[in-house]
């Protein structure tokens, strides 16, 4: 589904990604871990097409299409979803209205009929239950005055409603207490199926107790330096990122990057 080949990218003027190779197939959940500044969020933003994050070499194919050539909205309509680490507030637009606008923009792109409010409301209410979001929160402006946990739950609600093919979760667990973490994990797990792929970006192993990954990658200095099964996450939890750094440093003279 997602094929990243030798991807180099800049955030602003600074080169952050230095040759990422990654293949994610439908139905798989990949965790991307790594210390701060290793390029995790940059990777997420390059994939979503955010301004200021520019790829300088390499390619990204999404369902065999050139993802990097698409505008952010086209990527979304094609089925790429990014749950932001810092969800944005939009005063004056209710959560429900925003969700319907997004759903209809995507439906229109796919040649489906747009949903009217009468149809949309009961449908979205059902989805909201999954992340324990009540009607009052649905009628409030998008993320406006939401707590950190509420914002993250709102991201997951959007994901559940938009039913993406590829979901990228950028540090969705950061700043969550244990209850909120469980709600968020429940929403994510509900969406796991054979057709859908997920890229779970996280600093800690904690989230992976709830969302079991198929593959764990360690990102360091803009490259994936180690990949393995879920046990790799546990090892990182125990030993920290220091030993990876050592490994990479001792190996570096050999590599011709």
């Amino acid at each position, binding site marked *: 589904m997602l094929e990243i080949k030798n991807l180099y990218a800049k955030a602003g003027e600074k080169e952050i990604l230095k040759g990422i190779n990654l293949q994610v197939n439908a139905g798989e959940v990949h965790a991307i871990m790594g210390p701060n500044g290793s390029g995790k969020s940059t990777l997420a933003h390059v994939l979503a097409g955010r301004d*200021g994050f520019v790829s300088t070499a390499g390619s990204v194919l999404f369902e065999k299409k050139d993802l990097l050539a698409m505008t952010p*909205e086209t990527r*979304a309509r094609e089925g790429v979803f990014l749950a932001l680490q810092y969800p*944005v507030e*939009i*005063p004056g637009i209710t959560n429900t209205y*925003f969700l319907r*606008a997004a759903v209809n923009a995507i439906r229109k792109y796919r040649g489906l009929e747009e949903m009217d409010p009468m149809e949309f409301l009961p449908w979205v209410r059902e989805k909201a239950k999954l992340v324990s979001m009540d009607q009052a929160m649905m009628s409030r402006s998008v993320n406006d005055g939401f707590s950190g946990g509420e914002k993250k739950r709102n991201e997951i609600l959007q994901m559940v409603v*938009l039913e993406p093919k590829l979901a990228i979760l950028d540090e969705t667990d950061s700043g969550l207490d244990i209850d909120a973490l469980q709600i968020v994990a429940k929403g994510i797990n509900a969406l796991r199926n054979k057709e859908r792929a997920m890229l779970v970006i996280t600093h800690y192993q904690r989230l992976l107790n709830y969302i079991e990954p198929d593959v764990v990658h360690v990102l360091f200095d803009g490259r994936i330096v180690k990949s393995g099964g879920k046990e790799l996450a546990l090892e990182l939890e125990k030993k920290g990122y220091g030993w990876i750094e050592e490994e990479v440093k001792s190996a570096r003279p050999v590599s011709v990057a």
Partner: protein
Amino acid sequence: MKTEGNAIRDLTTSEYKYGFVSEIEADAAPRGLNEDIIRLISSKKNEPGWMLEWRLKAYQHWITMKEPTWHNVHYPPIDYQNIIYYSAPGAKKAGPKSLDEVDPEILKTFAKLGIPLDEQKQLAGVAVDAVLDSISVATTFKETLGKAGVVFCSFSEAVQKHPDLVQKYLGSVVPYGDNFFACLNAAVFSDGSFCYIPKGVRCPMELSTYFRINAVDTGQFERTLIIAEENSTVSYLEGCSAPMRDKNQLHAAVVELITLEGAEIKYSTIQNWYPGDKEGKGGIYNFVTKRGHCRGANSKISWTQVETGSAITWKYPSVILEGDNSIGEFYSVAVANNYQQADTGTKMIHRGKNTRSTIISKGISAGHGQNTYRGLVKIFKRATDARNYSQCDSLLVGDLCGAHTFPRLEVSNTTARVEHEASTSKIGEDQLFYCRQRGISTEDAVNMIVNGFCKQVFNKLPMEFAVEAQKLLGMNLEGSVG
């Protein structure tokens, strides 16, 4: 991929869509202002002596006045002697008697603006008075209104046909010496609209005036007077536009509204005068005095304005709440894009008991635009149990614009309840990215955010105009982001 700065700068690339010039022969006065010009205007309109006297008194007062400087708008000094104070399209006599006599070019001009004046295409249920430069060129649906006893005509016609009413009410809300621009208007006003709704009559249709400045170097000084007798109601809407010219043009209008006991006037404005180009060259200086007087008990005056045009907007539609239990409302959306400057707001003067007022002001600043809200809520000692609620919200698009709020409260009665809320928010690149990441295009995202911001005000416009206002706003901000 676009950089952040670029995307925001693009917001200011919209073009003014009403900027064409019509080739219409005009009968214009020489430049400058003196008593002779005023006598000329008065004689062109064949006015009675009392009208000329009033104008001359205003002029004598005006020359003693100084242009105000307290506002938060900046412009080079206006040379009042270099303005043409009277320009009438076509015929050198008074306005045309029927549509057949109207110059086809004029009809075309209004048709281009979406204001059809020929009978077949008239807007259903809306009577229109069309004012080009200084002259009212056509008023539609006169007969239908006549049957209901409603008088809706040009101001000049009212001076001829209803002199008693004009004499009784003219200047009774905005006296000629009220302020510099109102005083200038009193001396040189050339036309405008006049409405009179008799006792107990609910006006059967929306009344509407469309103002158009066409001729070069002219000022437009119109005057509107609306009188709602006891227990009558009327909804009135004005729209305006002007050609694109690289010189600034002055527009100084006066509007007076009077409601007697139990009467209600709803006055809506969609102001789209030429705002100047992207560099701030040209555009209309819009210095307007609008005031309503709730003279009778239980009466109501409601102002709704959508101000998208003009290089400078300077207006404070106000209500004097004289009658007990009277209600004043002000709903405003003001846009300042590119180099536009808007200094607008309202005054709610509570004099009667149990009077109520509501102020909802929404300012949108984009490009290098500067948007100022200026308001006064004054509660007199005898205004027991008066209430006011004010809400002033500002929306910023980009980093180069500004929003300013100057609310003023003067309360002299301890039973008063006055509330003021204010907020400032910004359409940022992060919000737009967020919307786009959810599949919503940049344009739809901006429209959605701006319309969400203005919803409270648009809801107050007559339905068909609410749609117009949304479109206009979309157009004025088109391409402003991403």
